[in-house]
């Protein structure tokens, strides 16, 4: 009884601690650029400013890139998850370990590793120049950013799909086989539909960080390559327009929330997808 009385204020306090920054971002977004909170004036200017084609273009590129990397990680990652799930438990764990290792490394570090591959003095260019060709400009375009994203986010696609596939009852496969289904039919009618919760978790876990990334695009895309994450960073850090920065953040968050709502609609089997949290 006593515990209960203490626990509520604690939870409320913690919730405030978490929610307050979000509320502040919101407040900044709907006030004018006054430099100080005392001259705050409610306005939608910050959002209107974003409607400029140059900013909308950034949003469009960000979403496109995020979608592309989500699709690629899904197409590449699903077979990996399936192959690993079919192995014996001992082998399975080693293979999953191999996939998890890079996740232990700092996100930044992993991206830098790609710099060493793709950079002007990098390995690929070393091979190219030794063969007598002119060095290639591999960094600083869409392809490099996309490659970096796929590399960084692949484990987040493989792991949830794998963890759902591994839990599928083998007798379901046998039952389908018993009822006349061949290997292809088993996949399309049983394995695939049952793995949907894992696929959805994977998609959200890749799409959300991909759409808001700023490190990958800055390093591999060069300073001139602007994604929405970079735009936010720029506003806060270099331009100093917190109001506009907050407005972009809000827009991005709404965008992510919509995506979440859409994907979770397909996700009837709630248990499966919640497995990862």
């Amino acid at each position, binding site marked *: 009884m006593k515990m209960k009385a203490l626990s509520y204020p604690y939870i409320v306090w913690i919730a405030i601690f978490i929610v307050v920054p979000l509320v502040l971002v919101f407040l900044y977004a709907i006030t004018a650029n006054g430099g100080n909170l005392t001259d705050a004036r409610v306005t939608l200017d910050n959002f209107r400013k974003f409607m400029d084609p140059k900013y909308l273009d950034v949003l469009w590129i960000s979403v496109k890139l995020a979608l592309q990397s989500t699709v690629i990680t899904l197409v590449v990652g699903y077979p990996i998850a399936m192959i690993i799930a079919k192995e014996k438990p001992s082998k399975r764990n080693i293979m999953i370990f191999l996939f998890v290792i890079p996740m232990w490394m700092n996100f930044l570090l992993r991206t830098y590793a790609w710099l060493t591959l793709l950079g002007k003095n990098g390995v690929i260019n070393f091979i190219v120049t030794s063969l007598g060709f002119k060095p290639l400009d591999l960094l600083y375009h869409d392809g490099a950013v996309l490659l970096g994203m796929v590399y960084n986010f692949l484990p987040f696609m493989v792991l949830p799909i794998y963890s759902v596939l591994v839990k599928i009852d083998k007798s379901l496969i046998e039952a389908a086989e018993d009822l006349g289904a061949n290997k292809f039919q088993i996949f399309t009618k*049983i394995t695939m539909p049952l793995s949907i919760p894992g696929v959805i978790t994977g998609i959200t876990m890749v799409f959300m960080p991909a759409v808001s990334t700023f490190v990958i695009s800055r390093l591999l895309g060069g300073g001139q390559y602007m994604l929405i994450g970079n735009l936010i960073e720029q506003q806060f850090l270099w331009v100093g327009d917190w109001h506009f920065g907050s407005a972009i953040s809000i827009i991005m968050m709404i965008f992510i929330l919509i995506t979440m709502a859409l994907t979770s609609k397909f996700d009837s*089997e709630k248990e499966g997808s919640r497995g990862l949290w």
Partner: protein
Amino acid sequence: MENNYIIDLKSISKEYDGVRVLDNINLYVRKNEFITLLGPSGCGKTTTLRIIGGFEQPTEGRVIFEGKDITNVPPYKRQINTVFQKYALFPHMNVFENIAFGLKIKKLPKNEIEKRVKEMLRLVNLQGFENRSIQSLSGGQQQRVAIARALVNEPKVLLLDEPLGALDLKLRKEMQTELKNMQQRVGITFIYVTHDQEEALTMSDTVVVMDKGVIQQIGTPEDIYNEPKNAFVAKFIGESNIIDGIMHEDFVVEFAGEVFKCIDKGFSKKETIEVVIRPEDLEITIPEEGKLKGIVKSVTFKGVHYEIIVNDGNRDWKIHSTIMKPVGTEIGMNIAPENIHVMKKVNEK
């Protein structure tokens, strides 16, 4: 006669990692027969079923189906369907889709599928359940869907792997009767696996008792119960008193220090044998009239009868009787010749 066999297992053996789980299984199954593989867990009964279904390959031996060798035919090409132990219903499909699965795979016309699924639902008493999700069904209902899903394909043989294991006692008894009736109605061969001896006796035309990967006895329920071939079968099928004895000559056996008449013959003279006496076959008399005598050690009420443990000074006898005898009384026991079952003595591993 051979034509009458729908399935014929020829010297089937199976090893996993060098461990032999099935040893030289020879078994034929007649058309429209209800045959039960009975034995404790790990006796190889499920492995035998899975070999018939095609989910496992035998290490040695052949599986003959209607005269053709199907040992290497994959499950999806066999005219055999299976009801799995935990039903294995597809959780992402409703009842209709589950039952229609096999027919859709065979690309039957839509109205034909609908007709046959409806028919099946009637057979298993689940009319109107078409659109229910699997999760919303009770254990017994799921069980029926699993049976319908298998039967709708009109298999020549239906394999059932402890299909009632997950149900509670009362539902189990009901489903036993229902399954047996269903088999008689549809008129196909059922191969049934269970570890419950009562279930096996109630439902089967033929019972196959297995232990340690070896067939111990094949016979009708009556044969198995009344004439167990060895101590394992006697102990596994019902309760029994098993006593060492000597066969003096045909129809004369000695055990517990007394000589009895019996109806068994064909043993060598003075052969050491084992005698099985069912608890309900021991007649209680007054001490003076009993060939055996003993003191009542314990009495338990079991509903239909009392279970009385009697000690004759050397061993305990288990008696099932509707007469209650208080603990401590001396009683006599008699056994009719036809209730003395003489078995060859086998050295247990």
